[in-house]
């Protein structure tokens, strides 16, 4: 890649700066397939040049995104984590397969989001109140701009994409960390008793 393709380079950088996360799911998205291929093939070039202006480009398997500078979790990020985790949990609870979340048009409104003592509490903790479909829909639409999912406003359905999978898979690591922390805490407690 040289100076003869500055528009595409700039376009890719612009999309990254808007917070879009590229992934191999883009291979099926017209226009984006080309950009993903360029970015994937010249990842080091992009990383070095973006780092000159203070951005750090990262890749996690096929997902390529700009690292956030300030790692303090925003309310929106918390909402994203809870909503995606809960979506997957409720979907699997219905006996559906994990893979289908990434292939079918999932009618999210049919899921039991605000069940007492479960989803309702979790959503409440991140400021999504009982029955606030509108806010969740807004969130899904914002996520679709970031490459996390496809959203159809007409049918109110969504299909997850690779960046969402990356986030959902973090649950396994978090689960282990929380468990480890629990074990440590118990050991600590036992030591204090002695």
């Amino acid at each position, binding site marked *: 890649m040289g100076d003869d393709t500055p528009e595409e380079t700039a376009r890719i950088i612009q999309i990254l700066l808007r917070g879009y996360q590229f992934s191999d799911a883009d291979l099926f998205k017209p226009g984006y397939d080309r950009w993903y291929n360029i970015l994937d093939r010249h990842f080091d070039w992009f990383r070095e040049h973006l780092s000159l202006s203070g951005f750090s480009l990262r890749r996690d398997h096929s997902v390529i995104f700009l690292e956030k500078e300030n790692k303090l979790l925003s309310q929106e990020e*918390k909402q994203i984590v809870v909503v995606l985790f809960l979506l997957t949990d409720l979907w699997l609870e219905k006996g559906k397969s994990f893979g289908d979340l990434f292939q079918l048009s999932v009618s999210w409104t049919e899921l039991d989001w605000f069940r007492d003592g479960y989803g309702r509490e979790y959503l409440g903790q991140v400021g999504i109140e009982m029955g606030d479909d509108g806010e969740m829909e807004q969130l899904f639409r914002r996520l679709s701009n970031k490459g996390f999912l496809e959203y159809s406003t007409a049918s109110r359905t969504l299909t997850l994409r690779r960046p969402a999978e990356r986030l959902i898979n973090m649950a396994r690591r*978090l689960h282990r960390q929380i468990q480890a922390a629990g074990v440590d805490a118990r050991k600590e407690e036992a030591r204090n008793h002695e």
Partner: protein
Amino acid sequence: MTLKFNEKASSVSITTFQGFLATANLHQGLLVDLCAEPGVISRAKLLTYMERHGISPADKDRLIERYCRTSILYEEADFEYSVNPVVVGLVNFYERRGRLTHAGFLRDQIFEIGKLTDTLQQLLFAELPEMDGIIDTVDKIYLVVREVRESGYQHYQACMRAFGDMKRNSGERPIDVRIEELKTVHRRYIEPLRELIDPNAEPVRKMALLRRRMADLGVDAGLLSESVELDIRRARLAIDIQYIDHVLIRHFETLIDTSRALLNSLLEEKSIKDALAACLGDLGGIWENLTADTIVLTGFQASQTAGMDRQGAFFNDVIHGKFIPRPRPLSITLPKEERADHLLLFDDLLLSRMEKDRRIDSWPGFVIREYVAYPPDERLKAIALPLIMANPPFVVRMSEQTFSGDLKEYTVELTDFDIVWEGDNGR
């Protein structure tokens, strides 16, 4: 079976083939269900099936009697029935259902083949080969091999169908139950197949031995020319052996692989489900552990970004090192309440200042000096504005010198430039 059939037929009444077809046509769904039932069917079960297929209680007895008369059902004992195996074979063939066979049965049959192969060997290499004995043995082998072929294939179909059902009808059932079910199927019907395809195990060696004996028989032209019958049977047997070697073994491998893949994906799902539920239950814990990850980048609004070409040029400057911001770690200060006009440097404000002054030397320095009350981010944006603005009413004159300035949070270093206002002429 045949004996019983004759007994029944003579004791009741002989139905025509037409009658059989008409009866079989009556309740096809019911018949398909009955054929899927392995072994003996109790009367109670039979009645339940009829219930399910909407047969009125008054008609049930008559239908059972009619099934028995047409030899679709055999009355094995009082209130116990079995379905005519010919019907079962036909229905299952066309329904592509298959029937589960215990792998142990297949193994026993293969050992039986091995025994018969030994007999064949003795007969073939006897000083005076005995034609009748050879034909009989080949015939016996043929029957057993055919049985292995058929039940093996049925087993394959039944297992595949079971997997399909599991995938399709998994709704509403918790994942643990599904894992248990699959594990049971795997242990009972799939795992034992491994022995049948293991090249070092007895069954495979027995089949190899049979192939060798068949080859021996094939080269013995004298023996074959003596009997057309033997030749036909040999050819028939060879087809089945070939089928077992090439198709059935591969089917069994597929079964083992499919079962393992299915189990893995279920276990995978279970692990993610458990992890999700645990994480949701401890949101506080997640926030603590998510401190090193990027969830989303808030990004710039489309309205804040400049036009494509300008932005491209700007980033080219960045890329080629003409403009080097030196980021320092951000220090976070809590927001104070401030008047809005001291927080944001609007483009209008900057433009009106340019218009008033007509000419501003060293724009970056000017911005830093003049707008000292504004946050560093805003001043940085103001410095960059002339470089990225579309259709500016002013001219940017690049100078030879390099400008460097301090913006508290960044050090800025770039080629210095002046602004000359052109007003409406510039557009």
